[in-house]
């Protein structure tokens, strides 16, 4: 596997004495769609800041596509595109100028810069806004503009720090489609997000960071397979007159309101066994949904585990 980014023993301590990163080691393969998750203040943005050279590290090594960021500054920066969490463009510039200027910073000649900015502004649905002042854009549009700006030099590695924060669901899904498309086209993507559904939908591999340490680093599939207990909400077609209270090994059913039943499955029991048990009681199920996002359950359990270990 070609490694897009490799960090070893990455450390960052601030003048205040806060240790933001306590020796992180991580590898992200080329072409991967990688999730970096963690609670607020876990060190995700510091990690991204160090990789993008905005934050000076205290210790450790960072390599991008095999090159040391200290000795190959020019090439590693060319390979990187960064979409930060905070809005960081001039609010007084026009949308088109912000993107074209960034292209110029990367050394793209004016004609190519104009072509690239048109390409990405069109792809992100902002071409009609190119002559508007950037401060006039909505929150979602600002985020898309920052993605267009980060892509204008066509980096091999794109780092997105909560790109869909505050973006409505429809727009979020269209951004997911766009990101999946550029990932399929070969761009490696590292994503941090608080929307765990987003990470589950998009990412193939995942690392969870907490209190400056990596506490989980695996594939999304493996992580989800570790989830032993699944909770579902089942909706019946008719009003439930009587209490439903089934407690068998690996299956627990409980009425939660006049039309809904909570089913908790464990030990390899599947959802069919729950539906069959309800069928025996004359209850017909017409729809079902996960009670909570699966990744969210795992994420919380890992954080709880880390907190206990940390004591």
């Amino acid at each position: 596997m070609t490694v897009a980014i490799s960090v070893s023993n990455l450390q960052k301590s601030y003048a205040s004495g806060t240790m933001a990163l306590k020796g992180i080691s991580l590898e992200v393969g080329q072409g991967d769609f990688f999730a970096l998750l963690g609670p607020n203040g876990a060190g995700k943005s510091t990690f991204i800041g160090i990789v993008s050279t905005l934050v000076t590290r205290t210790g450790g090594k960072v390599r991008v596509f095999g090159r040391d960021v200290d000795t190959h500054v020019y090439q590693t920066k060319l390979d990187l595109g960064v979409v930060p969490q905070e809005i960081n463009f001039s609010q007084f510039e026009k949308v088109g100028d912000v993107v074209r200027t960034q292209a110029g910073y990367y050394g793209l000649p004016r004609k190519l810069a104009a072509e690239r900015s048109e390409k990405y502004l069109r792809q992100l649905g902002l071409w009609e806004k190119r002559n508007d002042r950037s401060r006039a854009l909505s929150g979602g549009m600002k985020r898309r503009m920052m993605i267009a700006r980060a892509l204008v030099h066509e980096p091999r590695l794109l780092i997105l720090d909560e790109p869909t924060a505050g973006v409505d669901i429809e727009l979020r899904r269209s951004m997911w489609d766009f990101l999946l498309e550029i990932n399929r086209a070969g761009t490696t993507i590292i994503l941090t997000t608080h929307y765990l559904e987003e990470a589950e939908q998009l990412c193939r591999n995942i690392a969870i960071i907490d209190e400056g340490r990596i506490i989980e680093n695996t594939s999304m599939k493996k992580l989800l397979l570790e989830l032993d207990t699944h909770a579902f909400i089942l909706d019946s077609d008719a009003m439930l007159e009587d209490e439903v209270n089934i407690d068998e090994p690996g299956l627990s059913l409980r009425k939660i309101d006049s039309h809904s039943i909570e089913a908790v499955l464990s030990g390899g029991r599947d959802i069919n066994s729950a539906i069959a048990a309800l069928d025996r009681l004359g209850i017909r199920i017409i729809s079902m949904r996960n009670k909570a996002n699966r990744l969210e359950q795992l994420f919380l359990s890992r954080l709880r585990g880390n907190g206990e270990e940390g004591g």
Partner: protein
Amino acid sequence: MFSDHRLVAFETIVIKEVRRFTRIWLQTLLPPVITISLYFVIFGNLVGGRIGEMGGYRYMEFIVPGLIMMAVIQNSYSNVVSSFFSQKFQRSVEELLVAPIPNYVILSGYIAGGMVRGLCVGLIVTLMSLFFADLGIHSLLITISVVLLTSLVFSLGGFINAVFANNFDDISIIPTFVLTPLIYLGGVFYSIELLPPFWRVASQLNPIFYMVNTFRYGILGTSDIDVAWAFTMLCLFIIVLYGGCIWLLRKGTGVRS
């Protein structure tokens, strides 16, 4: 000086800077022109008429070089300090820092932007002055070189101010409490021959005094100081300030965590 991609980055920064100060020309280009025109009318025409001659020239002709230089100094400085600080404030400086641009190209771009504004305003003020005084040029080479070097010095000064500034007060303290007094005491409105011996010596510690007088020499052919020494001092200032700016950028002072 720059390879291709660095030249493109340099041009991009300069174009962005020029676009910025021309977009807000009501704040950047017009006020200095109005202020300096008022100086011409009040000090040159009304008061100057009663003063008579200064340094062998009509008072209006004596103050014109100093007023042009004042415009160049203030605008070169304020363009860089306000633009770079504003980029820090809006965090758009990160756009530059993540890009593969060497520090000297970033610095050169901002300095060039400051010089372009300083020289634009200086040119407008010079054209305005032609309505009030008959100006000849004693030495074109000295006139142009001193104005370029002075603009460069104060652009560099503005950059250092912006690096250390944490809020908008910080970018107005130096211009208000340091730059303006030094300009006013730098022989813009008087010859130091009028001063008592102590203040004459004290004036010679003011670097702006040398810049104003060298520029005056370039235009009028008269000066209170040794022009060669003034150029030496300007070059020393440039070397020290440039070195300081590059060192600050390399350290990431004010821009990197």
